[in-house]
């Protein structure tokens, strides 16, 4: 399978202040992608920026995939200026994907801000393979940071909104909702968003003996496991401590394998 593609941009829309959705045409990428995987985008032809930018796959269509991104630096700013009809060099799909173990009847997604990006594809897949719609907690700074709400509702998901300023849904954090939710029984939690959120979700899951899969982020150079730049301390094989590559062993990790105490900040 070829992992380097010149993709036509077939859609590029603002979806919220500073947030965009881009659809990339490629049957090849679409045919090989699974929810949770990501792409490395070549932002410009020159050396500015020098490195590609990692972006989660938001949705998988028959002839392409979409990404959902936030402008937060030079690279994403330039990305946001590209027009429909232009081409962009895309590497991927890369990394592992969300496991959907059968033994769990309940699926709960907890997304913080732009961390929602990988979940539309996941919801579709769970609907397809398990026939249930996951419950979702959508958290954000304010109402403009709650993305994909409509999509999730259309797919039949029970969706809880929570904002730090109370401008939509409850006021508070994702974990406030999580603590209040009346869910019992074997549950599997999928989460993505700011690291402190993921850490807290992980703790709550441990207490409840739930399985928790998080999509992690790290500065990446190669996206292919060769530079060893994107690592996170983890215990993956038989208690063996290692530096796991977010781009290869991840980006999806069972949060129990992450050595949280060794992660700074």
């Amino acid at each position: 399978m070829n992992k380097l593609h010149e993709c036509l941009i077939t859609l590029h829309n603002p979806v919220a202040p500073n947030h965009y959705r881009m659809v990339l045409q490629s049957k090849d990428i679409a045919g090989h992608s699974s929810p949770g995987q990501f792409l490395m985008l070549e932002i410009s032809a020159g050396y500015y920026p020098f490195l590609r930018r990692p972006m989660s796959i938001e949705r998988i269509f028959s002839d392409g995939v979409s990404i959902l991104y936030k402008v937060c630096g030079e690279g994403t700013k330039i990305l946001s200026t590209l027009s429909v009809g232009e081409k962009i060099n895309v590497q991927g799909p890369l990394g592992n994907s969300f496991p959907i173990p059968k033994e769990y009847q309940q699926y709960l997604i907890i997304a913080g801000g732009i961390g929602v990006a990988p979940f539309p594809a996941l919801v579709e897949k769970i609907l397809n393979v398990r026939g249930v719609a996951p419950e979702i907690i959508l958290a954000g700074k304010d109402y403009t940071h709650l993305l994909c709400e409509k999509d999730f509702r259309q797919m039949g998901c029970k969706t809880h909104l929570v904002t730090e300023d109370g401008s939509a849904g409850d006021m508070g954090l994702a974990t406030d909702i999580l603590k209040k939710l009346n869910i019992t029984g074997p549950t599997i939690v999928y989460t993505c968003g700011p690291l402190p959120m993921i850490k807290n979700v992980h703790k709550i899951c441990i207490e409840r003996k739930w399985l928790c899969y998080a999509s992690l982020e790290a500065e990446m150079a190669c996206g292919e496991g060769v530079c060893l730049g994107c690592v996170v301390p983890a215990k993956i094989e038989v208690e063996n401590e290692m530096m796991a590559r977010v781009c290869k062993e991840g980006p999806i990790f069972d949060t129990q394998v992450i050595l949280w105490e060794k992660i700074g900040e």
Partner: protein
Amino acid sequence: MNVNLQVSIGNLTLKNPVTVASGTFGYGEEYSEYFDISELGAVTVKSLTLQPRLGNIPPRIVETPAGMLNAIGLQNVGIENYLKYKLPFLRKQNCTIIANIYGTSIEEYVKLAEYLEKEGGADAIEMNLSCPNVHDARNKFKCPLIAQSPEWVEKYTSAVRSSVKLPLIVKLSPNITDITEPALSAERGGADGISIINTLLGMSINTHTRRPKLKNVVGGLSGPAIRPVALKMVWDVSRTVKIPVIGMGGICTTSDALEFIIAGARVVAVGSYLFRDPLAPIRIIQGLRDYCISNHLDDINNLVGSITVD
């Protein structure tokens, strides 16, 4: 037109002068999904140490203008795992292998080299005497790299030289006043080739937290940003020593590779730019052939050091 792209380092012949820089190609598996890695003149593997190493605490990389800083800290599987799990793949692909080694003493380098030779783990050995990321950044201050001491370079080189027969390459650091001094030492010590350059020391600060962006504080700068510096050092060294120079530092395109060859590099390595374009080395091999044809050169060796300076 038939063009000879073969070049030699010691008694090793490479089918073409293009390799990859240690640490930017893993052990070959990942990029073998992108192209037939046996097409490379050689695969240079990530630095190997006696024991597996976890490397530095992240964040380990920062993007910089036309380049990047890394402070990986030599995370690697260790020599035994390499021989057991990585080497068979490379051999199956029929690759020419340059094994890069890193030790914390002369004895460790010797052990690593002997082990590699005994187990057929490499076709040439590259001694990394110049990794900027394995000392604590604050102590590094008065704890220079081996490559910064011409005297030590000679000692290290000759110790390894006298214990193995494999072609021996010494990798030097650009963080030095005069790169020709350790280059001459390496030659005197019996090296068959000199790799330049490893990364330039650099740093980057997050102005909000007022902390270094790299957990290890200091890292090594690579990429097109450093290309002019690397090229100058290749020119300096290749005029000074008689053994072949393996040139690297920001090589992205055929034109970049040609600059290094014309300056005097017998072999060129693509490093950080692989992260942008994993196919770059293949494009360069083809591009070198094309250049030779359109310039009526039937042997790339005639291009090496062909710079005219008036």
